[in-house]
C-alpha cells in the first residue's frame, strides 16, 4: 500500500483526497501570509456589546497580533482602533477593560478620545510650531465594523464584503446560541486567558468540526461525569441515536429545563429546523468559536505559527433567571477553560501535533482529514469530517485569493 507523501498533496490542502500538508502548522512564511491574507482581511470578532454597555466603556483585544481598543463613544457608537499611539507606537491604553473619556499615551502625552481623535499634543506650539495636523494623526481605525446579534466584528480591509455577505448564511446558525430569547445574550464578567504552544488552526478546526475526537480525548469525563450539581449526566451519556436530536448536547438538569421551557420562543425566533439542531459548536472563520453547550465564546489569537493565546468568555441569555445563569457559568468552569475537566486534555494534543509537524521527515507525510470522505451523506446535520475539509478549503481559498472577487462566499463552509 502506498503511503501518501507530501508531494501528492495538491497544494497545501487536498480536500478531494482529505490530505493536509503539515507545513501549514509551523512555517513562518505561511504564518506571515496568514496574517496578511486572513487576519488583515477577514471579519474578526472583537467582543460582545454587553462588555461595553455605557458611553466611554472600552475593552482591549487583538486582531491577529495587532492590539485593538474597542470603545463605545460618548455618542453611544461602537468603534475600534489600533491600541497604538500614532507618535512612537506606545500602547495608549494598558488596561484590559474600563471606562475612560480619553487615553493619554504615557510616553509623550499624545491624548486621544474614545472616538479615536487626537485631542492633545504636549508641545504643540513649542515643538511642532502649530503645524501638526491633528486630524491626520488620530488612532488607526478599523476599516469596517458591524454588530450581529450582540457580536461585534471588524475588518481592516475596506474592500471586504459586508459582514452578512462574508458569513454567507452562517449568521442563521449563530441564532441557535445568540438569538434564543428576545433579550439576546450577555457576557458574564471575567475571562479565561491563557497561552499554548500550538498552531491556532488546530483549535479553530477542532471547534468547527472535529467531532471525532470527543470519545478518546475526553475519555476520562465519560468515566467520571463532571458537574453533577447541574447536569444529571454528561452529553457523552446520550445514546448515539440521540446525538443529533434537539438539545441532545444539553444533558438533563436545570439548564436543559430552562431551554425546554422556552422552546416555543426559540422556534418562533429561528425556525423549527435550526431549533431542532442539537446545539452549536462552531468556528466563524477564522478564529472565533462559540459553544452553545458550554455557554462560551472564545477567540484563538495567533501568536506565531506555534503559539496561540486563548481568550474565552461566558455568554448567557440575558432573559435567563439568575440561577440558570449561575448554573451556566459554573458548568463552563467545570468543563472548559485551562482548568476545565474536558478542555485540560485538548491543549497538549494540539501542542504535540504542532510540535511533531516541524520534524524534517514528519513534514513529508500529510495529515489525514478523510473522515466521512465519500460518505458525506452519513455525516449527519453536524457535518462530521466534511467540516474539517470545509475549514481548510476556506483557509486555502483565503490564502490564494489576491482579491475578494476570487473568494466564493456562497459556498457553504459551515
Amino acid at each position, binding site marked *: 500500500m502506498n503511503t501518501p507523501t507530501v508531494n501528492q498533496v495538491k497544494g497545501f490542502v487536498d480536500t478531494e483526497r482529505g490530505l493536509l500538508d503539515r507545513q501549514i502548522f509551523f512555517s513562518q512564511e505561511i504564518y506571515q501570509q496568514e496574517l496578511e491574507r486572513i487576519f488583515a482581511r477577514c471579519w474578526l470578532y472583537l467582543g460582545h456589546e454587553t462588555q461595553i454597555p455605557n458611553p466611554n466603556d472600552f475593552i482591549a483585544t487583538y486582531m491577529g497580533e495587532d492590539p485593538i481598543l474597542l470603545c463605545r463613544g460618548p455618542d453611544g457608537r461602537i468603534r475600534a482602533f489600533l491600541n497604538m499611539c500614532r507618535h512612537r507606537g506606545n500602547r495608549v491604553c494598558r488596561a484590559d477593560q474600563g471606562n475612560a473619556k480619553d487615553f493619554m499615551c504615557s510616553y509623550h502625552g499624545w491624548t486621544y478620545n474614545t472616538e479615536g481623535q487626537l485631542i492633545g499634543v504636549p508641545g504643540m506650539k513649542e515643538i511642532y510650531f502649530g503645524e501638526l495636523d491633528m486630524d491626520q494623526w488620530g488612532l488607526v481605525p478599523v476599516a469596517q465594523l458591524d454588530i450581529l446579534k450582540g457580536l461585534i466584528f471588524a475588518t481592516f480591509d475596506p474592500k471586504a464584503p459586508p459582514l452578512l455577505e462574508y458569513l454567507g448564511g452562517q449568521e442563521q446558525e449563530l441564532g441557535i446560541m445568540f438569538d434564543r430569547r428576545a433579550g439576546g445574550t450577555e457576557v458574564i464578567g*471575567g475571562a479565561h486567558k*491563557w497561552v499554548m504552544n500550538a498552531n491556532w488552526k488546530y483549535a479553530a478546526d477542532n471547534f468547527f468540526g472535529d467531532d471525532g475526537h470527543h470519545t478518546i480525548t475526553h475519555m476520562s469525563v465519560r468515566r467520571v461525569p463532571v458537574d453533577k450539581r447541574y447536569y444529571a449526566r454528561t452529553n457523552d451519556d446520550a445514546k448515539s441515536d440521540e446525538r443529533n436530536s434537539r438539545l441532545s448536547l444539553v444533558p438533563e438538569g436545570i439548564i436543559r429545563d430552562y431551554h425546554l421551557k422556552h422552546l416555543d420562543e426559540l422556534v418562533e425566533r429561528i425556525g423549527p429546523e435550526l431549533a431542532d439542531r442539537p446545539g452549536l459548536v462552531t468556528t466563524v472563520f477564522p478564529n472565533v468559536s462559540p459553544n452553545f453547550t458550554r455557554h462560551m465564546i472564545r477567540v484563538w489569537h495567533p501568536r506565531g505559527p506555534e503559539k496561540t493565546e486563548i481568550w474565552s468568555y461566558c455568554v448567557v441569555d440575558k432573559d435567563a433567571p439568575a440561577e440558570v445563569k449561575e448554573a451556566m457559568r459554573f458548568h463552563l468552569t467545570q468543563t472548559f477553560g*485551562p482548568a476545565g475537566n474536558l478542555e485540560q486534555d485538548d491543549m497538549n494534543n494540539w501542542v504535540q501535533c504542532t510540535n511533531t509537524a516541524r520534524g524534517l521527515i514528519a513534514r513529508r507525510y500529510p495529515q489525514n482529514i478523510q473522515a466521512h470522505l465519500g460518505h458525506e451523506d452519513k455525516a449527519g446535520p453536524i457535518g462530521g469530517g466534511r467540516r474539517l475539509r470545509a475549514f481548510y478549503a476556506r483557509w486555502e481559498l483565503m490564502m490564494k485569493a489576491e482579491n475578494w472577487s476570487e473568494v466564493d462566499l456562497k459556498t457553504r463552509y459551515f
Partner: protein
Amino acid sequence: MINHDLWHEIHDFLVHEARLLDERSFYEWLDLFTDDVVYWMPERYNALDMTDPSDGVSKPGELALFEENKETLHTRVARLATGKAWAEVPPSRTRHLVTNVQVEPSETESQVRVRSNFLVYRTQLEHGQDLFVGTRDDVLRKVNGKWKIARRTILLDQAVLSSANLSVFF
C-alpha cells in the same frame, strides 16, 4: 501577640498538604477539606484603577479558573485516577513551596484565617516547565480535633496564564 505553637501547627499542616500534592496522594489531600469547602481561584486582569487589592480580580458570580466544592474537587481527583485524563498522562512532576505563612486567630479557637504565598514548579514530559506563583487566603476549621480547610481563595499572579492548562492543584 503571635501564638507560636499555633503558627507551627498551621505551618506543619500546610507543608503536609504540599507533600500530599507533590506525592500525588490526592484522595488524602481531599480529606484535608471540610465538606462545605469553597475552593475558588478568580481571574486577574488589568483595571484602570488598581488602588485596592481587590481591583483587577474577578468577583464572585463572575468567571473563575476554579470554582469548586467538595464534590467537584472529588470529581477532579477521580478523573485523574482514571489514567485517561491526558493532561496528566504522564503525570506532572510538581513541587509546592509554601511561604510567608501568617496565622490570624478568630474569636473561636476552632477557626483561623491563614494567608500563605506559594510557588508551584511543574515539569512534564521532556521539556515542559511551568511556574505558578501566587497567594492563598484560607479559613481553617477544627473538625473532630483536626484542622480542615473550610475556605480557600487562590490568587495566581498572572493575567494571561503562560501554561497550556491548569491540571494541578493549589
